[in-house]
């Protein structure tokens, strides 16, 4: 991450869907704080969890810095160092690690208030790993290796 070359031009927050709406989230300030060595403050503050990953900042940064990727990096560090983070990340991770998919197929509500599932729509069974154990194992190992 080349945060130190940031010109602080203010382009990233300008069209950011979150900065305009959530107090305290500003990709420019996040980059500034990283370049000032204030990563821990950011990981504590929780702002890093409010990025929508719309990628406008990554797309438009004149210095090719990508606040988005800096934020992902901070999230990974925050989680591995046990900083507080939204439960949904653990749930999603658990789901995929254990079942191979984020959500299990479920009946869906129609406009006319009844429910339809894949079978009702004539869809084949949903995709999932052939051998879940092997998938789970692989993920586990890769994660441990990374830490």
């Amino acid at each position, binding site marked *: 991450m*080349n945060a*130190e*070359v*940031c010109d*602080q031009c203010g382009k990233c927050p300008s069209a950011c869907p979150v900065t305009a709406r959530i107090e305290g989230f*500003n990709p420019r*300030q996040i980059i*500034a*704080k990283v*370049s*000032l060595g204030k990563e821990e403050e950011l990981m504590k503050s929780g702002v890093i969890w409010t990025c929508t990953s719309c990628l406008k900042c990554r797309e438009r940064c004149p210095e090719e810095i990508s606040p988005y990727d800096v934020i992902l990096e901070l999230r990974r560090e925050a989680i591995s160092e046990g900083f507080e983070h939204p439960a949904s990340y653990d749930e999603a991770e658990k789901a995929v690690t254990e079942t191979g998919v984020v959500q299990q197929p479920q009946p869906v509500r129609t406009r006319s208030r009844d429910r339809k599932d894949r079978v009702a729509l004539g869809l084949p069974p949903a995709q999932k790993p052939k051998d879940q154990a092997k998938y789970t194992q692989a993920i586990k190992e890769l994660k441990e290796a990374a830490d």
Partner: protein
Amino acid sequence: MAPRIGVFVCRCGINIGAYVDVPKVVEYAKTLPGVAYAEENMYTCSSDGLNKIKEAIKKHSLERVVVASCTPRTHEPLFQATCEEAGVNKYLFEMANIRDQCSWVHMKEPEKATEKAKDLVRMAVAKAALLEPGEEPEIDVNPSTLVIGGGVAGMRAALSLAEQGFTVTIVEKQKQLGGMLRTFDTLFPFNQKASEVLEPLVKQVTTNPRIRVLTESKVSSVYGFIGNFDIGVDAAGKEEKFNVGTIIVAVGAEALEPKGLYHYGEDPRIVTQAQLEEIVKVGRVDAKKIVMIQCAGARSEERPYCSRICCNEALKNALNVAAPSKEVYILYRDLQTYGIQYSKLEQETKRKGVRFLKYQAEKPPKITPETDGLNVSFYSPTVNEEMTLKADLLVLSTPLVPVTDAKELSQMLKVPLDSNGFFMEAHVKLRPIDFATDGIFVCGTAHSPKDIGESVAQALGVASRAGIPMAKKRVRTAAIMSQVDQTRCSGCGTCIDVCPYNALRKNEKGLAETIAAVCKGCGVCGATCPEKAITMHHFTDEQIQAQGLAALEED
């Protein structure tokens, strides 16, 4: 019999044409006494328009030419030259400014603009009828130059002129040549040793047979005019007198001593960039946390200018002290890393880990010296928070200021200073290194703060400008000058006292006489002469009265 006058009214595209009824003005001009011909042009200054003037002069055997267009400041020489080409003496040309002083100021009232244009044309025609041809005195130009200041600019100007074949005298205040270059250890943007630039330059200058160097010297007197300046120099105590054809001002500038700013002078841990450079030069910097503050004493009420080089100077020094074990902060308002090389320098400095924090002019950093460090507190728009840094070393980036004797020199040379005390060029855009006074030029930081390359470019520039009259060997000066009627002059000497150019002197009869080549035709002498003995050629009482009376006429 009255001379035949031709009138050319310019539309200047729409600058005049859109507001002034040009055809009406032309028709009106035709009715004026003495006017033998009148026409309009889209652009009288275009080569097409100029040809029309020449044709008309021949076709209608015109003896006086009036152009009603823009300002004489930019266009009179052009039209005069055109008249000469067609055989009409340039002093038989008169101009009426119906743009700057008419169409531009009366855009919303076209009828009145047209009436005013008529008035201005009528006045010009009235004066034109009384114009007399003038002869321009030719002056020999002494092919030698006085360069005031032996810094990098002065030395480079001298070398180029010497290479061109002219002789040069450099007058330097200090014991040694080099000026401000001597105060630097290394030079941005490439961080090369200043001595690598300075020493070869000094050697070239001191060994050049055409260059004479007077150190510990000061110009004490300047008399004369382009081609022929009498110079007095106080050379290390003894008076030197010599004559030169041209003069180059390269006196440089000085670094501001930031007395009273950010506790400077009260605490050894607060220094200027120059002092930091001294520390770097002699050894290493112990301070772990270094904070630099830009615009210390610049871009302020007191000094409302940016000193151009301080940011890059700070970056250079930051790079030189930066180390993994140190934290270096640059507190800036607007980083002046303009152009290609300084943009690169900024990138390099950032990559090296130097931290840039903006501060706001209206909320400059507060310094609180403590035993364990200097607390630097400020609002940082970078993180949009109040911040406090504890610095072991505080470095102030101070601006360049004019040399102390700039005013004295400017009066001696009769050239102006700008509101900041730097020497002021003839025209900001197109005559950046000339003075309005012929034969005198300016380069380097005497003109305004600039880096070495920019100073050298200007130095070479003045070497060309000064080289022109010396290469031509002779110059012509304007015939707009005063003349003293010896039968009327009482020899009171008032004119001699008031002349700002020393262009009048007493002759052997004790009466005043004009030194043609020196006279700039300002007219002060004519206005003050109690005996009405002085005539201003091209602005005679008769001509001006005729113009005035014409102004009062009703058409």
